[in-house]
């Protein structure tokens, strides 16, 4: 099996080419050059980050946000990790606390990891196989959000999910302190197991870590930095881990800055002004749209635009009128002007129209667009006539439709636009914006009778199943539950079976599996339970003094690679 994902090429708009080239080149140069020399030249100082709000708990096993996963990269390590390098190299799995990525035995069900010697937690204690075993138990004991989706394939996991307190993962994860090894046994082979072990939920923490959500009290880790303090209403301070010695540049590079301060509560406008004035170095949130022309023109060298493995989409509830009719769902897909949607997001430079589920450059992606004026590989323009005809045929004209969007400028704009298109198609449409913190669970619960909504999905790890299987499989649909990520409520037994087939195929032949995924993608789009809108690009606006900006496709900007001196 190939965990070594196909080297992906960065594609970007022609306008961007130069800008991007400069960045990738810089990233490459930095790694290639003598790190020691750079380190002595640029070491020190404080990087200041800002975000409108904090992202909840700092427990790496519970927090499930891109915002803090980025921070966890420099504070925690798993057995394996995504490579801390620029571009698509970031999809590569590298050994972290394990000496190497092991080959599977026992028909792909057993992995034996040799733990590196001499790595210390920030509390000074050395990492042992016992810590690893305790960490895996802890995922279940604190009822981590992905116990049922990522780690349920480990032997003994079902018992742990049923009764967390007595969780031992017996026969699933065992350690041998003398030999320095950890053995993981799976119920069945899993092509994505390393990706699941590489995300922060599988971080290794000291065995004596309390078995409750850490909340605002940081847990010691093995990274180059440690979280020194955290207050969601003011700031998080990261300091160098006193016990840290660089053991793998790929997995856990030593950082340039002595300190990282993450401020919370600044508005986007204030953060932009502060970056321009050099008071902060980077903001997490996307710059507000009316400042984009200004920063794009005046501060072009400080703006970094990178593609993301993500998409914005409009899930349509296939169990509620009018979207229980496939013609209506197809009509919406035909009618949406994806250029206009990209415009609402900030223009062609920041987004790419799509009408399929897997994002460009993603494993399994094959250019295809069924819903455009002349269907083919890419989207060109909306086909209102066809859409209108489909709606006429469905006989659903005049029905009431409410679009549910998050309450922020961009999502509100997109929701309003979709409502406008629905009105044009003959529906009595309105848009409702609800708090971003609630919208995501609100649209999932069938009790709320949401007809159509605006949502986004960002990959957890680079595998087609992370889009198709997570978002549209029958098992992702839970009636009456807030945890029903199949928002469209669409269950297609045949496509479900094909997805299972693809996941099995991936164990032996990734390319063949990808071909199946491409087919499944198309299969779903024919039934159109969702309307893909566009693939967003990440816009990072950094201060003038920030050097060596490296963007990683998996975890975005790698903070420890950048310097401010």
């Amino acid at each position, binding site marked *: 099996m190939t965990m070594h994902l196909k080297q992906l090429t960065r594609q970007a708009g022609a306008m961007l080419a130069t800008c991007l080239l400069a960045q990738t080149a810089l990233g490459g140069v930095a790694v290639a050059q003598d790190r020691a020399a750079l380190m002595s030249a640029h070491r020190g100082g404080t990087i200041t980050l800002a975000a409108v709000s904090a992202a909840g708990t700092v427990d790496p096993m519970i927090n499930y*946000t891109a915002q803090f996963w980025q921070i966890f990269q420099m504070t925690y390590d798993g057995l394996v990790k995504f490579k801390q390098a620029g571009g698509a190299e970031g999809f590569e799995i590298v050994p972290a606390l394990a000496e190497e990525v092991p080959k599977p035995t026992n028909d792909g069900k057993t992995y034996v990891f040799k733990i590196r010697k001499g790595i210390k937690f920030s509390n000074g204690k050395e990492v042992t196989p016992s810590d690893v075993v305790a960490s895996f138990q802890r995922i279940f004991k604190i009822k981590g959000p992905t116990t049922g*989706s990522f780690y349920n394939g480990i032997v003994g996991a079902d018992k742990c*999910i049923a009764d967390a307190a007595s969780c031992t993962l017996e026969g699933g994860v065992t350690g041998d302190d003398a030999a320095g090894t950890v053995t993981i046994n799976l119920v069945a082979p899993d092509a994505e197991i390393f990706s699941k072990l590489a995300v922060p939920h599988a971080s290794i923490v000291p065995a004596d870590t309390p078995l409750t959500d850490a909340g605002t009290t940081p847990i010691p880790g093995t990274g180059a930095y440690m979280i020194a303090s955290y207050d*969601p209403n003011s700031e998080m301070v990261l300091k160098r881990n006193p016990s840290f010695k660089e053991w793998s540049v790929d997995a856990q590079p030593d950082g340039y800055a002595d300190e990282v301060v993450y401020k919370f509560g600044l508005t986007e406008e204030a953060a932009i002004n502060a970056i321009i004035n050099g008071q902060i170095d980077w903001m997490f949130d996307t710059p507000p749209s009316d400042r984009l022309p200004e920063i794009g023109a005046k501060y072009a060298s400080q703006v970094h635009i990178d593609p993301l493995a993500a998409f914005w989409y409009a899930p349509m509830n296939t169990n509620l009128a009018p979207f229980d009719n496939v013609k209506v769902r197809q009509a919406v897909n035909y009618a949406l002007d994806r250029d206009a949607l990209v415009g609402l997001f900030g223009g062609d430079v920041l987004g790419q129209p799509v009408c399929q589920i897997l994002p460009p450059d993603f494993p399994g992606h094959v250019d295809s667009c069924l819903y455009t004026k002349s269907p083919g590989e890419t989207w060109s323009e909306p086909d209102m006539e066809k859409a209108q005809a489909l709606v006429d045929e469905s006989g659903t004209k005049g029905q009431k439709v409410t679009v549910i969007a998050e309450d922020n400028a961009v999502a509100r704009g997109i929701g309003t636009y979709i409502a406008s298109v629905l009105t044009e198609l003959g529906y009595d449409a309105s848009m409702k914006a609800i708090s971003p913190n609630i919208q995501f669970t609100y649209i*999932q619960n069938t009790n709320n009778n949401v007809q159509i909504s605006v949502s986004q999905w960002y990959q957890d790890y680079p595998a087609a199943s992370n889009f198709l299987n997570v978002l549209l499989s029958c098992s992702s649909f839970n009636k009456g539950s807030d*945890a029903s990520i199949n928002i469209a409520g669409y269950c297609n037994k045949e496509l479900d079976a094909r997805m299972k087939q693809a996941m099995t195929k991936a164990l032996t032949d990734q390319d063949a599996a990808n071909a199946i995924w491409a087919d499944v993608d198309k299969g779903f789009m024919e039934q159109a339970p969702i309307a893909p809108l566009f693939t967003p690009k990440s816009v990072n606006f950094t201060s003038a003094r920030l050097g060596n900006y490296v963007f990683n496709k998996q975890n975005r900007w790698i903070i420890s690679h950048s310097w401010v001196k």
Partner: protein
Amino acid sequence: MFFAVLQRLGQMLFVMIGISALVFLIFFATPGSDPAARLAGRNASPETVEAIRKDFGFDRPLPVQYVIMMNRLFVTQDLTSFVNRGLRIVPAVAQAAPVTLSLVAGAAVLWVVGGILVGVVAALARDTLLDRGLMVLALIGVSMPVYWLGEVMNLVTQSRFHDTILFSWVPSLGYKPLLTDPWGWFKTLLIPWFTLAALYIGIYGRVLRANLVEAYQEDFIRTARAKGLSPARVMVRHALRTSLIPFVTMFGLDFGVLVGGSALLTEVVFGLNGVGRLTYQALLNLDLPMVLGTVMYASFFVVLANALVDVVYVLIDPRVRES
């Protein structure tokens, strides 16, 4: 007397309990507010959500949950947020309080001084062009939505005229603590102070003018003027003194309500993380523990201000004591 005080305290307690129960009920009546799923995280399995629900006691009867929550809020003070796990409510409110206090106290100074100035000048220049002009200005202050005025102030000071000498000193939005950076504190708050005070200068100026005009018709003022006292003396020693009584009670109430978090629009517009903004965010996130904490805090100030004003009123106006 003792009994009256006791009754008053009982009344205050009743109102506070009523409000907390109201908030609690409103929250649980909200569809989609189930905190278990949000606590469990993105894409959590139903089993995980169920486990979290049990852990946090969301499966227990509402009155039990209410008592537990109030106990954790006031007695053990370890109540934590539903959204930012591990964030304690009491310290969070305590941390936001100085921001709001700074905002409101500064604005209060402005509006008391401004209000008295407007009121006195307008009353002295009664029925002249100056009086009319001041009253029109006061009305304009009263008529502008505070959040809009804030936006316009931001536009002028942060963008359009930020590069001119007039506003180049204006720092970016946000709060700076008084103790670590007093000058920064002053600079960041100056514009919000004026924005919040504009409305109250208008109200207080108008009320004071009306009271002064009325006072000038009272017998004792006429006597004072007939005795040949200087106009300034009449104004300050006699007219203003009586006219300030309603002014003081108004001030007490307004100050209490604003400190409690009612300045939320100003806080939202200027990015100040005060109690008002905290409450607003908590409401939007349906973060019940935080909402309870902040609303109790706010209503405490309302109730307290009410009680204080009543006491002050009794002290300065003997007529009330009779009835």
